[in-house]
């Protein structure tokens, strides 16, 4: 069996596996970067004011949700793999994985930067720190949209064989 033959007969699987992997991997990469950005700033604040740990942690967790979205889409794609996939279904699943993956990858970093700025609010004007959370959560909208688009691809418009 040549490589091309392998691809032709198993293309649906290959693409779907890549879709699942990319969904988890890209959004996970984004989230770890976002959480890292906030974590660095938060650690600086907690050195001086350890009692603000709880609220700083919430800010650090915000860019972490993209990783969760990607993981869930990856999981849902993986559930489809044993069903037996055509090439076009595989492509569809790859696209579903990329949608949440790319939005997660890009939005997490931006959200991390906003949340890190929110740490400054927490440091200087702690009564207003809820507003920092809101600013950061606004960025998340686009990750949610990516996630929901992937969900729709998987459950509503998925091409049954």
């Amino acid at each position, binding site marked *: 069996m040549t490589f091309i033959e392998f691809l032709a007969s198993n293309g649906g699987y290959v693409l779907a596996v890549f879709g699942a992997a990319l969904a988890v991997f890209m959004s996970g990469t984004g989230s770890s970067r976002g959480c890292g950005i906030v974590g660095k700033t938060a650690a600086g604040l907690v050195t001086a004011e350890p009692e603000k740990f709880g609220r700083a942690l919430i800010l650090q967790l915000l860019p972490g*949700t993209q990783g*969760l*979205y990607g993981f*869930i889409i990856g*999981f*849902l794609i993986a*559930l489809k793999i044993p069903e037996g996939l055509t090439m076009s279904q595989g492509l569809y699943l790859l696209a579903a994985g990329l949608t949440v993956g790319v939005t997660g990858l890009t939005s997490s970093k931006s959200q991390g930067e906003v949340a890190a700025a929110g740490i400054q609010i927490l440091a200087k004007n702690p009564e207003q720190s*809820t*507003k920092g*959370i*809101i600013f950061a*959560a*606004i960025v*998340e*909208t686009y990750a*949610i*949209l990516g*996630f*929901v688009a992937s*969900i*729709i691809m998987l*459950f*509503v418009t998925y091409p049954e064989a």
Partner: protein
Amino acid sequence: MSVVKLDEFTLLTLDSYKEPLLKRLQEFEGVHFKNLQTGDLDGLKPDRALTDVSELEAEIAKIRFAINKIEPFVKKAAGFKAYMTAPPEMSFKELDDYAKNYDYESVCAALKRIDEEMKGVSAEINAISAENESLRIWRALDVSPEETDALQYVSCFYGVLGKAGAAPFIEAINEKFEASFYDVISAGPNETSVIFGVLKEQADDALRELKNAGFSKVTLDAPPVKRIEENEARLKALREESENLQGSVAAMAAEYHKLLMTLDSLATILERGKARENFLTTVNAVVIDGWAPSDSFGELEEATRKCCGDEYYMERREAEAETAPVKLKNSKMASAFEGITRMYALPKYGEIDPTPHLAPFYIAFFGIMVGDMGFGLLLLALSIFVKRAPGFSNGVKEFMNMMFYCAIAVTVAGALFGGFFGVTVFSPLRMDDGGFKPILDSRLDIQNMLVYSLAIGLAHIIYGLWLKGWSNLKDGKPLDALFDSGFWIICILSATVWLVGAVGVLPSGAAVAGKWAFIASAVGLALTQGRENATIVGKAAGGLFGVYGITGYLGDIVSYTRLVALMLSGAYIGMSFNMMAGLVAGEFSLGIGSIIRLLFAAVIAVLGQALNVGLSALGAYVHTCRLQYVEFFGKFYDGGGKPFTPFGAVSATVKIKK
């Protein structure tokens, strides 16, 4: 149900009545002072806070110090119990007199004394420990310095050698001072202690030579072993003393709460002193200006009469919109949402209070976005607990009061979507294939839900435009109401009818009517939106730009699809965690392996749903706020009022009984 009507007053009275009057007003807690010391003083002098303000501040600092010292020894209720403990309650008068009646000064002085003793003890402990550390290398010395000093022909030196060790030192002795002796007491990697004896006439020479070999002389007063033992005995005594001192601080732990209450008491008195920084004085008289709610103004007048007899003059007038502070008053339900208005900006005095208008939408939006019966019941239970538990702060209680109404909506919306912690349990509708589905299924009805969300958005935005028109009408500007609200409402509604009609849902006549109504309102907008510009060209350009604003409305309405997006993300995250738990659990049997798997599955489901409810609630909170602030407030609301902060008691610990 709106911004509370205030009256402004100017009070002129004798300076000697000021203190009792202020005390009474502080108890009344319904007056917001105006700062008269800025701007033109009309030849009057600013009333200075009394010297006792700085004294009070010093007292407060003393108490803070004492509280910090006692705090580590106070057993505090933790977790659940802390929330169930009610704060101490007292009347204003009790709080005001508390500091006077409690001998906090002796407590503070005692703590200060103990603290100083402790500092002394720990300094001594450090010094003695350091000495013992340096004596450690002499422990093996078996002669006493007294004995060696008494020798007739020989000088004895004790000394330390550095890292180079004993070798160069021994070499120097062997080369030049044959009539001598040395002994290495202890040899370590960094320090070597030695004793060295030489004939008295050679002593100076020897010292000079040996210094070059790394020897530095040490003076020992007593036999080191003895000294170390003495030191250790002393250390033991000191440690005991330190423990005793800590014990005497711990014995004062009962004073902790009293000190906290004293802090409140002094802060309240300090507040009274600082209030003077708003007033003007002559030699004997004082001028006070401020605002009080119109419906409790009588109480202010009565308080003044009681304190000043008839030796006062008070002028009452209507508050001016530009300067008056803002106090909100709403129904029990709407007032729970005042925090949302406040977070954006308070209305200006005289402006419409958006709180009662945003509340029903807020509840509905939050409900749809979370949309799960299980989450709703959980949030409901949490909000009822927080509302009932006495240990939460007012801010948290207010937030949870809002959450109470939202949680009911979450449960209702959950029934609509059929979900209970991500499991579809309520499916009343029969489908064609004989199965059942929820009223709005999160897989089959997404398109319908998107359309409904747009319709909700349309209603919200039109309501916002209507509010703007209504407040313009109230201000006597009917034309503005027609141009800026009426035209837009007609424009948006007719465009909707036209579009929906074009799809073929409505009779064809409706689409045609919608089309012409849309064109007419667009022309109306083009003619009126630039009316504030001076030139004809400006008016035309402004009008066209106004019509271009339609695209903004389009964006606004599409923004409401986030209602569906958030609901779906919560539903599918919940479903996925349940699926994962199901995969882990596998087929159930009575074997031990199956039970362990089941336990793991339960942990996954519980943690997953906990994460999901947190995420959903946070997302719903943020996005509901956004829809209110951007899409809704943008249509009619400016805000920018400053809050009415009544002069009253300052209490962090005590709850004031009314």
